[in-house]
């Protein structure tokens, strides 16, 4: 058994995590009433503004005929494909690059810290201004991207939102830009929680560079990586702002995702039932993801 395996086999040292305190507050009589009273506000908000809307949404989408109308709308199947592409590519590229960059940001160079601060800027920026700016960067000949291409390289840039593929790619790039910093920060924290002894042991065994990443870092981060990817998948599935502001569905509503299509049915066509049905049609994917994520998060003790 190598030194690395020995260290790994002794289990992951839990760094500074508090254990359950041995003393228990015994609840009886008035204390129990107090405790209940303290939970009431949370329970009330949860019931009134989460459970009731969920139930109401399910009720709105109860008619099977709605789903027939969805399928009859040529926009719908295209939207489903867009959603799959947007989520599938967007999330995986984001997470993978974030994992690699988290290693980059742990290098010891004087410029790494200031760079990290600037790199986190997209995360701090509210979504509306950020995505509006993306839209105007790609608006066409006068957009920043195309004018830079023309001035510096003499290339005539494409009209991004006239082409479905390019518009979809723009949405994906904007989503990566906005969310990669957040996940990078999470992975930096994850990497910093790995005790240095493990790396020292790995170095003794000759694992450095790529091999250290593949055989030591990644296995230790795998759980966090999985939970984060599931979480990012669910959130991106429900992402409205990116597509709404970057491509706005252009060209000709061919880059809509389920979230934007549902809202459009509800507001532009005044058919909230159809909108609710469009979003409910994501449930067969959403429910398993939520169940797996909640199990995984509770079982492995990954803290959300």
């Amino acid at each position, binding site marked *: 058994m190598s030194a690395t395996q020995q260290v790994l086999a002794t289990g992951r040292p839990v760094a500074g995590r508090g254990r359950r305190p041995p003393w228990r507050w015994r609840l009886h009589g008035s204390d129990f009433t107090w405790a209940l009273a303290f939970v009431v506000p949370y329970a009330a908000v949860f019931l009134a503004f989460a459970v009731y809307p969920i139930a109401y949404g399910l009720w709105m989408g109860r008619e099977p005929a709605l789903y027939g109308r969805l399928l009859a709308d040529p926009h719908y199947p295209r939207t489903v494909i867009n959603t799959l592409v947007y989520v599938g590519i967007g999330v995986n590229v984001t997470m993978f690059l974030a994992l690699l960059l988290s290693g*980059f940001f742990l290098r010891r160079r004087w410029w790494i810290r200031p760079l990290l601060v600037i790199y*986190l*800027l997209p995360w701090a920026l509210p979504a509306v201004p950020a995505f509006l700016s993306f839209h105007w960067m790609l608006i066409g000949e006068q957009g920043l991207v195309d004018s830079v291409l023309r001035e510096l390289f003499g290339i005539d840039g494409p009209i991004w939102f006239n082409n479905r593929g390019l518009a979809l790619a723009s949405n994906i790039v904007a989503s990566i*830009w906005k969310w990669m*910093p957040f996940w990078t920060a999470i992975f930096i924290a994850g990497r910093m929680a790995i005790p240095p002894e493990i790396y020292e042991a790995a170095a003794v065994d000759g694992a450095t560079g790529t091999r250290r990443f593949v055989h030591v870092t990644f296995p230790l981060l795998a759980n966090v990586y999985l939970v984060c990817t599931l979480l990012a998948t669910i959130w991106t599935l429900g992402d409205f702002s990116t597509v709404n502001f970057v491509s706005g569905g252009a060209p000709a509503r061919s880059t809509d995702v389920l979230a934007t299509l549902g809202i459009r049915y*509800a507001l532009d066509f005044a058919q909230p039932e159809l909108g609710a049905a469009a979003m409910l049609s994501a449930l067969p994917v959403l429910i398993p993801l939520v169940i797996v994520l909640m199990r995984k998060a509770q079982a492995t003790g*990954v803290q959300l």
Partner: protein
Amino acid sequence: MTALPFASPARRRLRRMAGDAAAALLGVVLLIWSLAPVYNMLLIALDQEGDNEFSGDIWPPEPSLDSFRAVWTQGHWYLEHIWNQFGNSLYVGLLTMVLTVLIASLASFAVGRMRLGKARMLTSAALFTYVLPSSFLAIPFVRVAYSYGLSDSLWAVIAAEVTFATPFAVLILLQYARLLPTELDEAARIDGASPARIYWHIYLPLMAPGLAAVGTYALLLAWGEYLYQYMLLSSTRNWTVAVAIEQFWDSDEAPWNYMMALAIMYALPPIAVFFALRRYLAAALGLGGVRR
């Protein structure tokens, strides 16, 4: 460094230099990548006509602050109520912050310190709401808000933001509370203090850093959220800034420099808060961050 035991020192040095150069290159790429949209916003806002054409100059030759002045003086019919709308955004943000801190700290106290039975149910409920994509609930939420008599009301927005901010707040506070010693609670119990007194005099002061982190999180969430504010608010007076920016986007003949100036002014407060508290937030949120 011992990966290549037979490499000569010169070769090793060469490899190191190549590695440094590659890292510096990646650094430059990341810098441009992160700043390009921000730069674009400034470029448009500083242009007199709201053009964003890049003409070879990195800094616009004739920058003009007209657009910022227009926003400041409400000098366009799109901007008529802009200070009112900034006020609304702040109102929603602050109330969301206060209510989130209050509700989440009470719940975390009952579950984490008083060990109310069936606590798992509450944490599961919190986790479930946290995980759910909020946009999928928007359409029924609007109907539900109407049924509560909250049409075109800032309180409907506050309710929505609190609903989506409290779950994460509860989870973070439960994590944070585990690090505190229980001896103080015990001593106070023996002295006959009521749970309410313990909550107020012991729990809240001890939890201050966690509460600050959670409050900041709620404030930034409510300030930056868009979909619910857009769907729940209909009259111009009640709009928040996020919705006010959107009207420019919907029109074909809007002054884009005004829009970008407004967008920058809207983005500055959260960026300031974020960077001022970044160390502190990282420490407090790191406790409950997705992390092992």
